């Protein structure tokens, strides 16, 4: 069995090899892109092979461990470098390598001019390696390796233009905030090992629930905190918007399609554990829902095109966690996949716009600012069309990809947690609103650029547009892999494929098909409402909302609820002060000063004795005599009985 899969180690290894070649053997910018793409393409093909091989197997046996070598072994602690091939990891591998491949190609066009694109592509490949390790590992520790690896690459890629101070800071912020999550994650692993006696998924999930009972909630919550860090859930979301400092393809790959979804993957992977703790599930659902609406609310007022997308990503991730939280893990993963398609596309489209404007706009004007755009639809048709499709998809308009996944999530929420369902619904409206706001401000209406600039704007090159088109197609039809039962029985290929993974879960109650249809219609209507709102405001220029919405709410959204400021005031600042205090006061003053003081005391005693040495011989004689008297008196003091 295993033998037939023994080649899977190549899947992560090839990108690593690509990075290696680019670092050590290649100095030519042109070639570097090719090498990177070739590496990813090969592993994509391999993933396809794995996929079909897996399909070929009976559903029951679609979970295979492939041990490469034994990694860390001390006494009772044993962890292998081994890969788990099952539908879940395969889906992730497909998304990572597939979308990744497109973005690699796109990068050739986008970064080809950059002086250090060799470095760029080696980072990108390194990221693919880490991400694949993350999704393929068959134990928590290996997942953690990937987990940190992607964090590192994100750090490097965010700070890719490191001569920009802001980029350097953003990279560091991302790494540190993630570390906070990792801290919890590590503790979770320690607890798991302590009680389950292993870190391999198979063993851990097989452990008798009663053994884990006392700590299951702690474990799952700790793991979830880790996920919150990686997947930018409130309150650990602060790093993602800043991460937009990185090159746009990076935002597409890491901060939209793959890395940020690692948290969702992890929760889904550990569904067996999460399912055992109602508390944890609730926490996941609530945090997810809250993040969804919170981020969406902020996204509605941002002007930086990439920041809007960043917040929308956060919001969508919230959806996925909501899905997991209500037990609809399949829905979560489904949304993960579709989101990968359309969000990557959105970022790449935005990238293509920025790319065009960078050259067009005169100095000092920010090419990412929506207020500098407008009316680009005629100038960049391909980009416009593909982004339109993506926007429809994310807005949840049928029959685009987003519709099916989001609908499934809403259904789950409606069934298990009506309150959260309302939240999710509201979020859906906002999503439609801000996404179309973005679309209209970019492409719609008439341009806000001066004529000389508009001349310079033109559609991006093929190598950029082709991936756009491909992704556009995916985000249009991608949803059909999971058609709900109401439309056609047994057409939910996606769910069917993942079914063996989530087989252990209790069957979720399914509402009557009429209710389900009603919900769909409701969602669609609300989405349409959102679109209409955006249209009235940003195309028709209607100021009705300005009059309706209180200023405070608007500022709150524009200032992102002042989260960064609060963190600076409550966490960063104090830690700085404490550190300063420790180093200057405790260390320098108390400890070192104390030692100096002791030394001084001894010295001064020495000096006292020293200066009692007067040099007058009779004083010495006197001391002797006194000494002598003491001695005599003492000795003869002991007279017998």
């Amino acid at each position, binding site marked *: 069995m295993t033998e037939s899969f023994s080649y899977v180690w190549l899947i992560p290894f090839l990108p690593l090899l690509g990075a290696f070649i680019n670092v050590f053997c290649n100095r030519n910018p042109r070639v570097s892109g090719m090498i990177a793409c070739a590496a990813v393409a090969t592993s994509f093909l391999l993933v396809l092979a794995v996929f079909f091989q897996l399909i070929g197997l009976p559903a029951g046996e679609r979970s295979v461990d492939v041990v490469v070598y034994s990694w860390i072994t001390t006494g009772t602690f044993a962890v292998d470098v081994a890969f788990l091939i099952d539908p879940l990891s395969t889906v992730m591998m497909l998304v990572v390598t597939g979308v990744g491949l497109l973005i690699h190609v796109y990068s050739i066009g986008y970064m080809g001019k950059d002086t250090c694109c060799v470095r760029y592509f080696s980072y990108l490949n390194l990221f693919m390696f880490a991400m694949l390790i993350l999704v393929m590992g068959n134990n928590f520790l290996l997942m953690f390796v990937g987990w940190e690896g992607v964090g590192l690459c994100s750090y490097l890629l965010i700070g890719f233009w490191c001569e920009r101070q802001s980029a350097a800071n953003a990279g560091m912020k991302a790494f540190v905030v993630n570390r906070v999550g990792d801290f919890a994650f590590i503790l979770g692993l320690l607890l798991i090992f302590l009680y389950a006696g292993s870190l391999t998924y198979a063993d851990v999930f097989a452990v008798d629930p009663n053994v884990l009972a006392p700590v299951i909630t702690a474990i799952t919550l700790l793991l979830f905190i880790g996920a919150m860090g990686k997947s930018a859930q409130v309150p650990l979301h602060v790093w993602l918007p800043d991460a937009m400092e990185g090159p746009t393809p990076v935002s597409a790959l890491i901060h939209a399609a793959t890395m940020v979804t690692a948290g969702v993957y992890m929760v889904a992977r550990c569904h067996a554990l999460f399912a055992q703790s109602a508390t944890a599930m609730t926490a996941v659902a609530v945090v997810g829902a809250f993040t969804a609406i919170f981020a969406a609310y902020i996204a509605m007022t941002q002007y930086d095109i990439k920041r809007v997308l960043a917040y929308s990503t956060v919001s969508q991730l919230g959806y996925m966690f909501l899905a997991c939280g209500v037990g609809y893990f399949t829905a979560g993963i489904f949304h993960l996949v579709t989101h990968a398609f359309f969000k990557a596309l959105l970022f790449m489209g935005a990238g293509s716009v920025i790319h065009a404007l960078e050259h067009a706009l005169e100095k000092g004007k920010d090419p990412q600012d929506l207020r500098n755009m407008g009316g680009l639809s005629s100038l960049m048709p391909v980009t416009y069309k593909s982004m339109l499709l993506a926007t429809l998809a994310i807005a949840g308009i049928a029959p685009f990809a987003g519709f099916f996944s989001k609908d499934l999530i809403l259904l789950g929420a409606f069934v298990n947690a009506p309150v959260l369902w309302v939240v999710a619904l509201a979020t859906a409206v906002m999503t439609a609103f801000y996404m179309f706001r973005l679309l209209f401000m970019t492409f719609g209406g008439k341009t806000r650029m001066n004529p000389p600039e508009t001349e310079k704007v033109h559609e991006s090159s093929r190598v950029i547009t082709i991936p756009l088109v491909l992704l556009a197609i995916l985000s249009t039809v991608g949803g059909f892999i999971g058609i709900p039962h109401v439309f056609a029985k047994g057409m939910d290929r996606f769910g069917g494929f993942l079914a063996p993974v989530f087989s252990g879960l209790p069957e979720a109650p399914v509402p009557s098909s009429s209710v389900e249809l009603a919900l769909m219609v409701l969602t669609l209507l609300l989405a349409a409402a959102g679109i209409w709102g955006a249209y009235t405001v940003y195309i028709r220029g209607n100021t009705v909302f300005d009059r309706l919405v209180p200023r405070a709410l608007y500022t709150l959204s524009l200032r992102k609820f002042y989260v960064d400021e609060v963190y600076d005031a409550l966490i960063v600042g104090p830690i700085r002060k404490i550190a300063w205090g420790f180093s200057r006061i405790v260390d320098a003053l108390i400890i070192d000063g104390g030692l100096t003081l002791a030394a001084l005391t001894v*010295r001064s005693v020495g000096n006292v004795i020293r200066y009692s040495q007067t040099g007058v*011989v009779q004083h*010495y004689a006197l001391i*002797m005599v006194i000494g002598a008297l003491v*001695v005599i008196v*003492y000795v*003869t003091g*002991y007279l017998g009985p």
Partner: protein
Amino acid sequence: MNMVLPEINLYAVMPQIFLVSSATVVLIVGLFERFRRAIPYLSLVLLAISGVVAVNQLGQDPIAFSDTSPMMVSDDFSLVATLIFIAGAMLTVLISVSYAEARSIGRGEYYALLIYAVSGMSMMAAGTDLFSFFLGLEVLSISLYVLIGFEQREAGSNEGALKYFLLGAFASGFILYGMALLYGASGSTEYEVIAHTLAGERSDAVNLLLLGGLGLLLVGIGFKISMVPFHAWTPDVYQGAPTPVAAFLSTGSKAAGFVVLIRLLDSVFSGLQVDWIPLISVLAVLTIAVGNVVALVQSNLKRLLAYSSIAHAGYMLLPFMSNSQDGSASIIFYLIVYTAMNLGAFGVLAVLTARGSTCATLDDLAGLGSRHPLLAAIMAVVMFSLAGIPPTAGFMAKFYLFSAVVTGGYIELAVIGLLFSGVSLYYYLRIVIWMYMRPAARESADATGRLSYSGMTALCVSALAILAVGVFPSGLLQLAQRAVMTLP
């Protein structure tokens, strides 16, 4: 009334006889101006001969000088002690040569007195009777008085001599009175008889006499070994004395004092332990503390070494508490090592300050590492050894000494001693810092570029000895242990 003349056995006092006579020879030859240059080497040879004589007698049963009242005895203990003294004296002679030349004190008497002093010490070591001890003590002291004051034109030398003389005579007054009391208590001054009296039934009066005598003796000997509070003279005298003499003073006469102390406390007065153990331990700790703490704040090297020698005396007092063979052996071993170390340290100073001021300060050492690498290296070895860092002999000595203390059950004393020896590192290492990590401040004491060969040989010998003993201490350890076997 008719007296029987006691049978006497000159063989027992051969070493002493040889020493005295060779001193006399040197004295006479010294009268002839033309032999002046040869004198040091002559005295070396003569010392060596007497050394050989002593070695010959090693390992035999103790031989008493006379059967009726053995004034002196030639046992391994006295012989080993004598050998230590002789070795010390030879090194002193070597480091004296250039120094004495430079200050034109290199006359015959100088070396003659040195040898007389040695003979006095060996009498102290061999004496089994308070009077032979006293005789030796006086021979030693009187020669030292002269030696210290030998640089007649140096006010310091003169002052030091006077101080040492007055206080020394004062101290011998105490000793003599103590002897008188002991004589009164036991009707004799022989160690055996006194010990016997102690062992036997004794009245309060006798007891009072004994204890008083012991106390007074302790005062006198405490002066010689510069035990607090009888130490006050040490720094002044070391500073004033010609450097080689100071070296001799800090090793030889101190060693002699300890040898006598071992004989007295461990064999004669062991009966009175309860009385003197607490006293000695307190005084020992005081000595260690004062020596180390004051040395911290000294920048005049001779005074610094003086205080360090006080501290070392303190260490050497500790094993008396355990009052065991090992204890005494560890003291002997420590004395051997200590002699090498201190002669090395003072020797470096002597070589450095052959010309110029008698007292070198830390600044004179600045940059020595680059000016005289060899000299600096020797000094460094000596300093690390004094500080008790392996692989030097100093460590082995300290280790053996403190393990004897611990074995005696006085762990707290050992810990105190060790901690203070940690303090001592500060000033020993400061010297090393000045030599290697400070640029030469001003054109310092040694005007001469080249150093006398004799001096350097002495220093190299002691440095090598320190290292060798540090790595292979077995031989000397066994010697020290053999030496104390013969003690009653």
